[in-house]
């Protein structure tokens, strides 16, 4: 059965990784991997009987014989063509099948306020903040695929931002699926120092026509007064599946702005956790999904108000055509100590076809009493009054529908303060709507 084969593949991949790293198998990193493998074995592959995977069936993905394949020989010029952002002047960090490709990456040099390096046993030993964050912001117990990532990641990447980043850093997670069905597990830790400011873009790309599943984990530590913008772009091919988990821990007066745009791919599951752990922290979560065909996208978000005087805003929208299916799960926790919390959430879905579906579940758990929280959700078709208004002003019906659909989705991006990136994201949305 496919689950058993997947379990075997994970164990075998772990075994070959152990051989590859040879001498380092006794180190702290490998100890993390080993306990992650145990965590995976304990949890097992989730089925729709698990509450958090109720609408999200991963079994069809496991019908393919997904294997890790760290030795990709994808040519530099093929990689250069991926994830091009005409409006955004970004550094590029290219990761192919989980391994960093320095030959095609363009990384900052000198005093660029950022260092990008591999996470090694030495680094963990010499850098207590990294050791405290890596594998701890998102522990392997978070969910079974996080455990898969933690067990199989050979190269964890540290992005350490010390100051104000002059350009965005674009991390491209590429799957080389030209020869066989693949599984790859990119892993990144973003450490933003006190008062640092960084824009990170994460995008996913599959080359080749075999099935590809990438299981990505990104941990973010936003220290006091820092400002982290994190943009995730998923506009991959329809043989590409993605299970991603991003968690941000946000300290005093720091701000994390996260935006996720899904405009393609066979299957997408995004977990985004934002933990506001000290007073004055704020989290902003934005998402747009534009799906058609039989695409599937699940956005699972958690905003955890741990400390008092924190603020969060969340806005997710989806446009679903054909037989596409969307899931939105938005949890807000307000812990007992988190007085004076303000937390707002809304999610809206536009169904353009009778067979499209959205399963939305907002979930507020509030233990503090002096808080302002709200959530709202809508599902529907285009507003007939608006449609008529536009037509009465001369717009042909098709154009009026397109304009309203565009406005519905693109409006989310108005909340972003970076013009170039907003332009790029709106272009992606428009391309998907065209």
């Amino acid at each position, binding site marked *: 059965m496919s689950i058993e084969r997947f379990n075997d593949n994970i164990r075998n991949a772990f075994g070959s990784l152990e051989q590859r790293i040879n001498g380092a198998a006794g180190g702290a990193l490998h100890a993390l991997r080993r306990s992650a493998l145990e965590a995976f074995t304990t949890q097992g592959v989730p089925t729709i009987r698990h509450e958090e995977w109720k609408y999200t069936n991963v079994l069809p993905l496991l019908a393919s014989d997904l294997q890790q394949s760290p030795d990709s020989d994808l040519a530099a010029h093929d990689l250069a063509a991926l994830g091009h952002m005409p409006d955004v002047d970004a550094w590029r960090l290219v990761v192919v099948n989980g391994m960093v490709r320095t030959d095609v990456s363009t990384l900052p040099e000198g005093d660029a306020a950022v260092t990008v390096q591999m996470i090694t046993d030495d680094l963990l030993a010499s850098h207590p903040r990294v050791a405290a964050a890596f594998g701890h912001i998102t522990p392997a117990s978070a969910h079974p695929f996080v455990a898969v990532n933690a067990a199989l990641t050979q190269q964890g990447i540290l992005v350490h931002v010390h100051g104000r980043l002059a350009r965005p850093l674009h991390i491209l997670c590429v799957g080389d699926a030209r020869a066989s069905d693949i599984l790859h597990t990119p892993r990144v830790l973003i450490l933003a120092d006190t008062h640092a400011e960084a824009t990170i873009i994460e995008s996913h790309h599959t080359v080749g026509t075999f099935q590809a599943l990438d299981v990505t984990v990104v941990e973010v530590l936003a220290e006091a007064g820092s400002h982290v913008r994190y943009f995730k772009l998923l506009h991959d091919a329809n043989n590409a599946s993605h299970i991603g988990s991003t968690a941000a821990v946000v300290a005093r007066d720091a701000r994390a702005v996260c935006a996720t745009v899904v405009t393609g791919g066979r299957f997408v599951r995004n977990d985004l956790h934002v933990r506001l752990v000290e007073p004055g922290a704020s989290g902003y979560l934005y998402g747009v999904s534009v799906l058609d065909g039989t695409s599937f996208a699940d956005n699972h978000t958690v905003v955890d108000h741990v400390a008092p005087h924190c603020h969060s805003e969340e806005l997710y929208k989806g446009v679903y055509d054909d037989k596409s299916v969307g899931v939105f799960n938005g949890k807000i926790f307000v812990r007992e100590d988190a007085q004076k919390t303000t937390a707002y959430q809304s999610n809206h879905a536009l169904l353009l076809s009778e067979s499209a579906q959205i399963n939305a579940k907002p979930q507020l758990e509030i233990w503090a009493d002096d808080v302002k929280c709200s959530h709202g959700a809508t599902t529907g078709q285009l507003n007939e009054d608006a449609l*008529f208004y*536009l*037509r009465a002003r001369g717009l042909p019906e098709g154009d009026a529908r397109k304009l309203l659909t565009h406005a519905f989705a693109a409006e989310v991006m108005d909340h972003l303060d970076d013009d170039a990136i907003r332009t790029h994201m709106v272009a992606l949305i428009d391309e998907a709507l065209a």
Partner: protein
Amino acid sequence: MQPILTIDNLRAGIEGREILKGVSLTVRPGEVHAIMGPNGSGKSTLASVLAGREDYEVLGGSVTFMQKDLLEMAPEERAGEGLFLAFQYPVEIPGVSTANFLKTSVNAVRKYRGQEPLEAAAFLALMREKMKLVEMDQSFLSRSLNEGFSGGEKKRNEVFQMAMLEPTLSVLDETDSGLDIDALRIVASGVNALRSPSNATVVITHYQRLLDYIVPDVVHVLVNGRIAMSGGKELALELEAKGYDWVKNTVPVEA
């Protein structure tokens, strides 16, 4: 001269209920017609049927606009032909800026008429000129269409759009409601500035007040889906003094 609009014994309804029960009306170039009537008499229904709202079912009669069968046309074709409806309740459209919307609208109508789209500079100049008419601030252009606009701002925006589209026939549905006296004056002078011997205006209103500023050639009183009475501009004053019950009582229902 050919009439701009001829409504002949128009009957229309919604969800099986007849609301307009035989309305006839002829509007000629250069004229201003006022349609007054109590709430619920069918004024907005008439405006919606003219503009092509599909929720309403036409049950009988005909409407001819510039020698063409209006009822055969899609709403956007009616706009292209030169019909403009200023909505009683302008719709808020988040995410579409007023400027972008206007450009799309103006160019859609121009395309319908076989004209080239306006170039950016010409379009901007036109917007600036027309905004002055209704004393609208530039800042509205970058805001989402009608979103968060006050009642008065929405109505001014309707007249601004009317100015941009230069319609042959404008139907203003309660453009005066919710306006203070200053806003009313601005809106009315905007409408008056757009009047010409070749176009016409139908002003729908509940109150006589607006007609002090936009002086009608003909006043019609719509009661219970029928034009119960028509007359000159004095009729509006008489109505104001005597109330709608006067019409209901003096005119036989089947008039």
